[in-house]
């Protein structure tokens, strides 16, 4: 039951979603709508599970006084303050929740990813070498695209943006299409294996 039950659920839900695409009438269309409305709710619990895990780890770290535990207190306090603000005053513009979002959450989130600009520059310097003909093609393509996409490229040579557009619209597009067609065939076969119960790794673990 612990293994067969989930396999049956996977088969039924997957089969209904596929069937309603080819037969968009009752009962399949009704079932699809019903499953969609349930999915919205269950997906949230999956995300809450993630938050639950996070809390468990950090509360545990504080209780056991593990390394860097004071930072876990910062995390918990941040969570409690933001959560209380949302529950007490709501989440609209003009509320404390929104104030924290705009003045604390946004700057930190943006800056965290802005750091990557420095690391991508460092990586370009250290690792981007024309070691083989293929690597040279990659390097040349990257340099042309980088230059042609910014006003500097246009300033250096007025037709450089056209060259960039051509690379993006044809050779790049062909390469991307081949990659995504390959991915699609992989996704389709894996989906079918999951629905038919051949692929069961998602049921492993506890």
């Amino acid at each position, binding site marked *: 039951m612990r293994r067969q039950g989930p396999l049956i659920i996977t088969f039924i839900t997957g089969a209904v979603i596929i069937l309603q695409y080819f037969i968009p009438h009752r009962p399949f269309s009704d079932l699809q709508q019903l499953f969609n409305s349930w999915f919205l709710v269950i997906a949230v619990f999956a995300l809450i599970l993630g938050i639950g895990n996070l809390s468990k780890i950090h509360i545990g770290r504080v209780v056991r006084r593990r390394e860097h535990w004071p930072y876990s207190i*910062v995390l918990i306090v941040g969570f*409690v303050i933001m959560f209380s603000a949302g*529950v007490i005053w709501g*989440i609209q513009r003009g509320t404390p929740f929104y104030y924290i979002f705009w003045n604390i959450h946004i700057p930190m989130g943006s800056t965290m990813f802005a750091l990557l600009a420095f690391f991508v520059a460092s990586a370009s310097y250290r690792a981007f070498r024309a070691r083989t003909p293929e690597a040279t093609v990659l390097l040349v*393509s990257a340099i042309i695209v980088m230059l042609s996409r910014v006003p500097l490229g246009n300033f250096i040579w007025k037709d450089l943006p056209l060259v960039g557009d051509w690379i993006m619209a044809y050779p790049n597009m062909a390469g991307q299409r081949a990659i995504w067609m390959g991915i699609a065939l992989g996704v389709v076969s894996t989906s079918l294996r999951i629905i038919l119960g051949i692929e069961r790794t998602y049921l492993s673990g506890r």
Partner: protein
Amino acid sequence: MTTDIGTWIAALLTLCIFSFLYRDNPFYKFAEHLFVGISAAYWVCYYIYNILIPNLYNPLFIQGQLLFIIPLILGVMMLMRLFPQPAWMSRFPLAFIVGTYAGYNFITYLQTYAIDQVRATMVRVVDVSAWQEFFAHPGVVSFFNAIAIPVVVVGVITGLIYFFFSREHKGVFGGLARTGVWFLMIAFGASFGYTVMARISLLIGRLYFLLHDWLQLI
């Protein structure tokens, strides 16, 4: 320089994160943990206000749609994963999520990436008007326009051949696969160029904030 307290908080936290560039330090760690805590609470509030109340509580407890007891039970079963003994119960809601996604992915990837993309590649193998234009007005631009569609067809087919691993990449087949690799390299190069562009944009965004909103120098 601004006198707005919110902007000052934002600026100081921005500098805390930037301090990581020198080396990992307590200011960065403080900001990092604060960010995770606040993010998690933001998500939870949105789950409550935007999903749990309108899509579960109201239909089930206000409108009396009893069928919604099923996703509630499945949702609670999902949370059982947090505890060792009843963790197996989470397999049932997980199966529902995986099954639904598998169903959607099966159809949508087949339609969007296989059928529609093959059609778009094959429907205009030869662009007659581009060649007519090239012969009427020979030049670099008209030449590249004329070869554009053949380039796409060759790129897609040879790229797919490269991904075909059931046959050894030797002889003519190997040559075609190597051609495919070149197209893939152009695509990866373009992606790298765009990645650099994206990361620099994010840095511009933050420095613009510091110079414009905080220091008011620009």
